[in-house]
């Protein structure tokens, strides 16, 4: 019986979709950041292996984006409980927009981390190499 369900019937669809968007898009951003900077680290590491451990910082920062998406997705999905608290379309749309906000911000942050990390680690490798040139060539 629907005596304990309170709220709009279609609202949980939007709420759960918000949680899915939060994690899905953040994971896409984290994956892009990890991939792009990781490929840069691998190609730089062939010439200067001693700098690889320092260059893993962009990868760690991109991984943190996945954790942000995980937190928001769990908060949203435990907040959808129409039996305990009424869940109207307003709540459903609020959860959808918060999930999209977290997810799309994570996606853009991950893409930025990837592109900057890739450029940064390859310049990092080249910079140290040029500095050690014997004839003082800069």
């Amino acid at each position: 019986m629907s005596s304990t369900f309170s709220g709009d019937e279609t609202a949980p669809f939007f709420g759960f979709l918000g949680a899915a968007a939060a994690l899905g898009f953040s994971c896409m951003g984290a994956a892009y950041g990890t991939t792009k900077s990781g490929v840069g680290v691998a190609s730089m590491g062939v010439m200067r292996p001693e700098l690889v451990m320092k260059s893993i910082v962009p990868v760690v920062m991109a991984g943190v984006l996945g954790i942000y998406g995980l937190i928001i997705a769990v908060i949203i999905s435990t907040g959808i409980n129409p039996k305990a608290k009424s869940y109207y379309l307003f709540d459903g749309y609020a959860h959808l927009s918060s999930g999209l906000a977290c997810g799309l911000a994570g996606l853009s942050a991950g893409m930025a981390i990837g592109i900057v990390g890739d450029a940064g680690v390859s310049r990092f490798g080249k910079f140290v190499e040029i500095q050690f040139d014997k004839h003082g060539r800069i």
Partner: protein
Amino acid sequence: MSGAIVIGASGSWARAMLKISPYTFSAIGIAVAIGVSVLGAAWGIYITGSSLIGAAIKAPRITSKNLISVIFCEAVAIYGVIVAIILQTKLESVPSLQIYAPESLRAGYAIFASGLIVGFANLVCGLCVGIIGSSCALSDAQNSTLFVKILVIEIFGSALGLFGVIVGIIMSAQATWPSKV
């Protein structure tokens, strides 16, 4: 009982969506969970495998160590299988009067979203691990001290699939069907 308000559909799109059976949504969610995860795993394996085999022509010593990258991609497919089996055990039969009750609809939406989460998180994880694995094989062929360092990056990448599984399982706990009266 008092104070519980159930609002039905207010527009034509909502009325149409309320006529879709929750079992449709659940089935699509379970299919996406396993199908898209396996797509991600396969994509990663072919990216890694082709680089690995090509690099092993000149450096055959890399083959046995770099199979770890293939195993990381395969783990993504296994996460998809596990979650699909868990989601399919959450399906219960309800009496036909209750199929379109709000609680059953909510359970259907929860399984759908859980399947979407797991599928797409594993897709991007498989791609990420595959591309990093291919770089790992190529740089290992040039300098064997790099293997363990690039493997650390792959471990960060494979954590993304685990996040998807965790959230998928937490969300599937929301899939409670109305009890048979």
